[in-house]
């Protein structure tokens, strides 16, 4: 009897111990690759670099924040004067539109930016060691990969510094939980310096041609880097450097403005994307759709402001056919004031939901041209600036009522004209607020009036006085650090305006 029990017991123990040794005690993740197995070949690096780009299209599974392009749109447009609230606007979005911002506003979360920055940091940190493992990886290929990661990281820090002013600067990857997460903010100027340093290095390493359009416009090239450089230089007041950076793009002969034509121009530049006008775009595809169809059309959160069509693009009351091709049915649907740029197939037809793959346009050629005009104007070459504007206006069929005739020697008049032209050219492309802020803050906030005028245009009557008083404080031009970040990172100090 006892032997029998013992035997049964022995068999049972054997069974349990044998089956428990199975690989479910192995801690390796089933849906990913651990680091020891990665970073072995150049294909691994390529995979990681492409991962950076795709992280900017949509958030990874299980993460609930908005997509990068939505943040870029909102940071660039909400506080400016061309947007109105749509029926599905959220309270947080409306508060930012009304300069009624507190730190608990969810849109001030920068998690999406730092997530992609961490991907870039990982590539920059771990890719060089692959050279020891994979002899087929050349130094040039490695440099090319590094230039992509460096440039994207620089662009994201540039956007953060323009949006939040002082932000934490982290240039090493976060690989373990033992990392120090209590990082204080670095001043805006230090961020800009780092951005310039990174972009210069990226430019040395950069690719000029990947061999196909989708990669040339969807990945970082030397032209994208120089467009970014010109932008940062304009923000930091280095106008000669900005001019030189734009020359590298305009002198390449690879870009040109496409002549205006009914439907074709819109379809080529916006609906299809990757045109010769384009420098860098976030490549949404039909299998990886952007957020725009929903937020501009199906459940509209944002509309063009009531007078945008008339004030920005102008209306020719004597000839309805004479119109700026960038206005009606390109940027705005007249009547309903919907933002049309990201949802149309051509000027007459809207895309259907499953085909709504319009890209997000980070830099277009016209941007470089107008940045060049801005640099020329600051370098006392107003004539050159006006010539650039005239050329763009001609190609875009801008109408007479929006044309201005500034004296080339009057910097302020010329810059106002450039700003007006930028509003037409980049309507709803996430540029407007940064444009007016960049010009307003120049020379120690010499042009603060631009910001207050823009604010008055859209402010509710009973809050106008407060909004103007708030805007007189330069710190109010930047968003607060989100409450959650302050809670988790004790080294952060809130922007003093949002006390």
């Amino acid at each position: 009897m006892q032997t029998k029990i013992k035997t049964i017991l022995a068999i049972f123990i054997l069974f349990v111990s044998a089956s428990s040794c199975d690989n479910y005690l192995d801690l390796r993740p089933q849906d990913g690759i651990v680091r020891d197995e990665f970073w072995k070949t150049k294909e691994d690096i390529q995979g990681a670099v492409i991962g950076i780009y795709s992280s900017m299209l949509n958030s990874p599974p299980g993460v609930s924040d908005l997509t990068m392009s939505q943040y870029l749109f909102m940071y660039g447009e909400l506080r400016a004067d061309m947007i109105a609230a749509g029926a599905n606007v959220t309270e947080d979005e409306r508060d930012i539109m009304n300069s009624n911002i507190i730190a608990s506003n969810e849109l001030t979360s920068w998690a999406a930016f730092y997530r992609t920055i961490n991907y870039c940091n990982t590539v920059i940190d771990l890719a060089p060691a692959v050279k020891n493992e994979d002899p087929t990886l050349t130094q040039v290929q490695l440099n090319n990969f590094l230039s992509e990661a460096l440039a994207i990281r620089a662009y994201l820090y540039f956007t953060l510094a323009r949006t939040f002013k002082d932000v934490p600067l982290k240039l090493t990857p976060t690989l373990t939980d033992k990392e120090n997460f209590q990082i204080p903010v670095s001043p805006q100027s230090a961020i800009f310096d780092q951005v310039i340093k990174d972009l210069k290095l990226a430019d040395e390493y950069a690719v000029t041609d990947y061999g196909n359009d989708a990669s040339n416009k969807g990945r970082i090239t030397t032209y994208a880097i120089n467009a970014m450089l010109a932008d940062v230089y304009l923000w930091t007041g280095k106008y000669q450097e900005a001019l030189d950076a734009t020359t590298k793009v305009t002198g390449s002969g690879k870009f040109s403005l496409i002549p205006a034509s009914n439907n074709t121009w819109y379809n080529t530049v916006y609906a299809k994307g990757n045109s010769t006008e384009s420098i860098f775009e976030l490549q949404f595809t039909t299998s990886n759709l952007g957020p725009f169809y929903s937020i501009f059309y199906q459940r509209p959160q944002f509309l063009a402001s009531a007078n945008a069509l008339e004030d920005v693009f102008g209306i020719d009351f004597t000839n309805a056919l004479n119109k700026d091709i960038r206005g009606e049915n390109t940027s705005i649907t007249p009547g309903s004031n919907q933002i049309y740029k990201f949802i149309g197939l051509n000027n007459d037809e809207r895309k259907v939901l499953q085909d709504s793959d319009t890209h997000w346009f980070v830099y277009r050629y016209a941007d470089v041209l107008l940045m060049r005009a801005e640099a020329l104007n600051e370098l006392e070459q107003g004539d050159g600036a006006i010539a650039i504007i005239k050329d763009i206006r001609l190609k875009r069929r801008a109408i007479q009522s929006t044309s201005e005739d500034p004296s080339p020697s009057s910097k302020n008049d010329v810059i106002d004209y450039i700003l007006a032209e930028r509003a037409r050219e980049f309507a709803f492309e996430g540029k407007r607020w940064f444009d007016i802020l960049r010009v307003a803050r120049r020379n120690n906030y010499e042009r603060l009036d631009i910001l207050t005028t823009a604010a008055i245009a859209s402010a509710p009557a009973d809050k106008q006085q407060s909004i103007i008083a708030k805007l007189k404080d330069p710190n109010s031009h930047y968003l607060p650090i989100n409450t959650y970040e302050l809670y988790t990172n004790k080294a952060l100090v809130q922007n003093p305006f949002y006390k």
Partner: protein
Amino acid sequence: MKRLLRLPSLLRLTLVFLIALVFQNCTEQKIKETTDETLNVTAYLRENKDYSMFLEILDITNYASFMNTYGTYTLFLPTNEAVKQYLTDVGASSLSEVPLKDLQNIAKLHILDQKVNTTAFTDGKIATPSLYGQFLITGAVNKNGVSSVTVNKSASIVTSNVEVGNGVIHVIDKVLRVADKTVAQTIEANPKLSLFTEVLKATGWYDKLNKPLSNSSDILSYLTVLAQTNDVFENTTWKNPSGVTIKLNTLANLKLRYSHLNNPLDPKDSLNLFVSYRVLPRLQYLADIAVSPALETKAPLEVITSRLEGDVILLNQEVFNGVLEKGAAIVKDLSDVTCSNGVLHYVDYNFSMKKRNPAPVYFDLCDQPEFRKLTSIFRTAIGGFKTLAKSEFSDITWDGTGSISYNKAATGTAITTGIAACWHTDVVEINNMRDGLIQNIAFKTPVIIKGKYKIWVSWRQQGTKLGFLKVFFDGVELPRQINLMESGNTTLDERVLESQGYKRYISPFTNRVNCRLVGTVDVTTTARHTITFQSQSSFSAATWLDIAEFRPIEMDQLWPKFAAGKDNLVTQ
């Protein structure tokens, strides 16, 4: 014991294990019984040493326990430095030296019984009065390049929106002081207003403006004064009857110019009217003036128009017969002076009464001061529902024992859902209009300038349980009735529809709402009038009314329309 030891080792082991298990299980388990550890106001103050002095005030006045009860409060919390400064100002060395009555008033002034976040602040008063009764005003100022939100102009907010269990705390750097001077005393205290003071005294208005309020939470008895400084009088010239241009800078000259009955104390005398035209009923802070097109004055049947141009509030700026008549701007930085019985503003120009042309009035029926006090729901994005009793209303009256409610749908709700299509996404909800509950309900309109108007009434339709409403203007029945069960027409041409007395008043339109031309009236006096609705049967569902529009007959009756579910107007 021996037997125990004789047991097989396996069993002994099991026994030991079981005993161990029993002991272990006997340790008491600590179960957290609270669901929320957020502190209430008083507890929060006890935790933070920086605010010990205000806590002392609460302790002395016995408000400490009250501020620890559950509720929705807003506390403006002065720091210790602020309280010390207050003690220096009143010349006391410790809080115990300050009279208890003063401390109670101070404490009450810092507390509101609604939760108000800084995002709800405007350029004017906070809609909820303080427990003391006086309203607090908010704004923002820029000092040396740093902007901050201010309360009662003097105190800046240091830390905002601190959430506690029973409300929200805003920390301020100065103690708010109870305004103890009346409007008249405030005017007299300012040497730049000496001539204005003389005029007030000569016309008998000084005493009227010097009357303290019997009940400080009664909004209706407050007064607003638009004063002009000596400089403004100095810059005003007039050609006297003998053809000589004189300055209106003395009381004698003003009497000469205005006092046509030679008795300034007579309310019909023009000098008296000169003053009464500058006195507005109710509390009208700049933010209120900026959003109201016409302001009622104490001069009978006369109104002041106001408009916002850029960032300047202009009074009485009108184009009349094609000529632009210059208006008076309100001097922003000096105005919004809170007094115990009203508020004082300054204007930069000697403005006078104007002939008025009829102007449209879009009267959102739920825009009532009592509803506006419901800051947590009134026109907030989230919305909500609140029923108020008959006795609470100042501008709505009805006959029975029924009740009415404010109903606001969440902003952004599809316009075909519920009341979401209505202007501002809100309606006044009148439950079961019938004999005994509410048969007749009368609303006092905003100021309507005299002239001929068409009256349009719009409502949210429902299919059953309702019926017809008769509409009366100033007690006179209007020709057309409203059928609350009739839905909007979406097919007919708009102008044809208009000729039949209907219109699609919101844009974009849905047939869930409807709008009826109830009649044309000749408004003979510029004043606030009454519009009354009378139920024609026993309704057993809620009546949802949106807007009563008074459009001058010569104006386009369709445009501008109202934005469906939003706050703006839509032009053609």
